[in-house]
């Protein structure tokens, strides 16, 4: 092993508060220029999503100029430190066609699944994170990690299909245990010894798969699809067990902190949400760094965000419909206050990836994060001009620091671009007016 000549910092979580842990950077894990692992395999490119509710106030959110030279308007001024890492996309549209405008649903479903839903209770079908995970999850333990800052397991924007929502991890302690509990294999451990318990699990699993097949053959067509999905899940478990029996690829920057001791208090006060968001983000960054997953989701809020502020009687969503517009300002001040808190957390999220070193750069260099919301102007449930962001350079394939203006073209172009960048062999994405075959060329490096 070469001498340790550099040091890298990993943000960890100890007792619910952030600490920094110095760790040695092991050059032996990387090739000469730090862009690939020592065995020549390139550093993996990952995909993530981030969601916030209730859109923006266009007047103070959308920059006046486009391209690389743009100023941050006041509602997003908290993005100052991460501006160079992100792109802001405005004046892209979602199209309902004949579907109704479903409050706080139509907008995000178009952004995540490319379709305009027909009613409030329908699940959207396969969302973009799942499609991309099928391509890039590779040999990781978790095909997708889905998290929320609300503390509510239901606040997920990830769906495997029209019957299945992805579970949102909502508890920092449980999330830590899931990621770094007894099944975690330290990729940098000196010795590797296959866990005989995993071999036993694998052996028993084959009988369970036979049982699934048996049941599959006895049910009706609709239930057969559900059994298909179950069987796929079992196969994925089997693959996971196989992977656990292999020595993991070393990940130099992977240093696992201690488990949080206490859960954040329940509730949706912005301080609690912000704290939970930080804790879950830090764990997520650690998980991605340690290559436990290559696809991840974070929901800062549900779409109709219920984030509240002590002493103010209206949660964000209620305020968006009830707070008077300040005619001097031209917007609802309290609503904007909530949006600004969301943007602060978005900045935290991007920065957390940007601070994590990987190779000669940062984790963010090898990530593409796609951030969406549910409305543009929530007060009137408008889905025209919904803002979107990306963060990260996707392994050098994406330019950053841009304000991209869509001129009314489908917002699905961004999701489609992300799919192409992630290597999906797709010729288009979306349905009806949301269908697109056109990437956003300005951001391709």
């Amino acid at each position: 092993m070469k001498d340790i000549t550099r040091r890298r910092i990993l943000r960890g979580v100890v007792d619910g508060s952030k600490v920094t842990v110095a760790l040695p950077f092991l050059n032996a894990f990387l090739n000469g220029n730090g862009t690939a692992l020592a065995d020549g395999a390139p550093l993996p490119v990952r995909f993530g999503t981030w969601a916030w509710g209730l859109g923006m106030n266009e007047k103070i959110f959308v920059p006046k100029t486009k391209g690389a030279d743009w100023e941050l308007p006041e509602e997003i001024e908290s993005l100052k430190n991460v501006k160079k890492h992100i792109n802001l996309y405005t004046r892209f549209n979602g199209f309902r066609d004949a579907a109704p405008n479903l409050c706080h649903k139509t907008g995000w479903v178009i952004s995540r699944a490319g379709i305009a839903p027909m009613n409030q209770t329908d699940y959207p079908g396969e969302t973009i994170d799942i499609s991309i995970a099928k391509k890039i999850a590779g040999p990781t333990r978790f095909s997708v990690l889905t998290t929320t800052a609300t503390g509510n397991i239901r606040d997920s924007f990830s769906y495997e299909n029209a019957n299945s929502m992805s579970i949102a991890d909502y508890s920092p302690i449980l999330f830590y245990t899931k990621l770094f509990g007894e099944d975690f294999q330290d990729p940098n451990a000196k010795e590797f010894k296959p866990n005989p318990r995993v071999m036993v699990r694998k052996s028993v699993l084959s009988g369970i798969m036979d049982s699934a097949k048996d049941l599959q053959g006895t049910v009706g067509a609709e239930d057969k699809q559900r059994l298909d999905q179950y069987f796929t899940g079992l196969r994925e478990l089997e693959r996971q067990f196989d992977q656990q029996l292999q020595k993991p690829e070393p990940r130099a920057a992977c240093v696992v902190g201690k488990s949080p001791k206490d859960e954040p208090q329940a509730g949706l006060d912005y301080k609690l949400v912000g704290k939970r968001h930080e804790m879950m983000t830090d764990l997520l960054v650690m998980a991605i760094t340690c290559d436990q997953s290559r696809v991840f989701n974070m929901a800062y809020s549900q779409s109709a965000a219920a984030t509240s502020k002590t002493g103010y009687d209206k949660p964000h969503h209620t305020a968006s419909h009830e707070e008077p517009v300040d005619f001097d300002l031209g917007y609802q001040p309290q609503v904007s206050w909530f949006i600004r808190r969301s943007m602060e957390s978005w900045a935290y999220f991007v920065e957390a990836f940007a601070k994590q070193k990987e190779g000669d750069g940062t984790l963010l260099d090898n990530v593409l994060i796609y951030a969406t919301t549910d409305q543009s102007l929530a007060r009137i449930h408008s889905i025209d001009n919904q803002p979107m962001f990306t963060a990260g350079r996707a392994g050098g394939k994406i330019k950053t620091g841009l304000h991209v203006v869509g001129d009314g073209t489908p917002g699905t172009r961004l999701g489609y671009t992300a799919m192409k960048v992630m290597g999906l062999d797709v010729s288009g994405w979306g349905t009806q007016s949301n269908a697109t075959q056109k990437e956003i060329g300005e951001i391709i490096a």
Partner: protein
Amino acid sequence: MKSEVKFIAFKRSFVASLLTTAAAVAVASCSQATSERVAKAPAVKSAQVANYQGTIARVRRMTPEQYHNTVAYIFGADIDVGSPFAPLRRTDGLLASGAASVGVTTGELQQLQRSASSIAAQVIDKGSLDQHTPSRRDFLVPCKPVDENAADDACATKFVKEVGRLLYRRPLSEARVAEFVSDARKGANDLKNFYAGIAGVVEGMLLDPKVLLIADTTEPDPEHPGRRRLDAYSLASRLSFFLWDAAPDDQLIKDAESGLLFTAKGRAKVVDRMLASPRIEQGTRAFFDDMFGFEDFGNLAKDASVYPVMTGATIKDAREQTMRTVVDHLLTRNQDYRDLYTTRKTFMSPALATVYQVPTKPGWVPYEFPADSPRIGLLTQISYLSLHAHPARSSPTYRGKALRERLLCQKVPPPPANVDFSILENPNPLLKTARQRLEAHRANPVCAGCHKITDPMGLALENFDGAGRFRAQEKGADIDASGSLDGKEFTNVVGLGQAMHDHPQLTSCLVRRVYSYATGGPLSSADDGAITALNAAFGQAGYRYPALLRMIATSDAFYEIVEPAGETKAAQNSVSGQSETTAVTK
């Protein structure tokens, strides 16, 4: 085999006695009253509700509570199950109905695997003297291996047969037993430990779709040629998940084996035993928790600066108070369901007494509000008032909407997407009460349509703030709590309680929800006949809840199977080698 089952049951009960929980005590306390209740329940002839078709065969995913209750019955109430399930989508008013269409995602299966691994480890836990934990393996494994560090096929076979029968809700085939014993042997050999092999088998069983999914299996109905019915084990499962919210117990599986479930007399005997069991409280709680939408309590929080009295303990006790009221009223005292909305009897805890501003004693104690109190019925309990309100203020609209949708099975349309509400939010300080503000809101004809549906009864609850505390005024202005509900006018919340009591949809909604819950999925027009017949029979039974459970559970329709209308099914669900599989096309 019988002696083995008794053995494991004895050991399970022994563990439970060591690890008694407050919940177990609460359940046991109502067992005697339950027996009396069944005796008092008006006799309802199954013929009254038999003149309609059966239901469709379904594949349901277990709910988290069903999984938890099943594991608790088989392995003990102290086993930590975790939260491995994805949330269900509320369908036709119930989360349980969403289980009939939900899929199991890859991520969820990974969570289930971790949960299964944890459960298995707890089952074979050898305990610790230092930590004062019992050796579960000594109670949950029905035999001692000859050598703890080696495989023991004979002992593994006993365990697999007993636990497998309860988890799979039917006896395992000899071939399946042999497979599991082989797995246990391999595990024991690889890990040099008999119990580690057993743990591997338990973990595997808990991942089997035949365990996690409740798949109705059918067979030809010999009494009605050309038609099909649930097989005895599926009928036992349907009964058990309906009445107990858990998998069948040992006796119920025996009843299925003996054919008792396929005679009217036998089925009635079985149902009466189940109704008399303390476990009926568990089932009743599960149903009403679902119907009332109480899962939202998991994320309920109030603004501490506005409602400092609403602590986590208050919120937890609010949910429990309503459940205790329901169980006491419907099961222990076998009263008319409608009276739940006018009763002043409930239970009180210290945390709640602070909000209700009444004296109380430590722990839970029966409590009756005085006759002149505005606290009347479930709608004036903290659970309803705080759940359907904002974090820092009340919401007549949320309360009215919940009343219609949850309790009357009505549908309130969503607000139009393009309405600008803010122009109606008048900052005029003269508008002090919610009524005044909502009247301004309803001046807009677009808003008026929906708010006329929700507000008149929601405003009758305005004497209670967002935490459920009584108030006579809001911002110094007297509160007018008059209102109306579908043509009935009232001047205060007492009138609202009576209007709810007398509303014909109050009882028909309960019938719809219970029947849907019983049969495992959303209703369709094919169920109209059943609902009509049950409504009439429920009325004749004096709107007694146990009678409703009994008439559904003993009806022919409960186990007769029909094809889904307008759908093609490749096959009726059946278990290979146990029931005939047919291809039915419509």
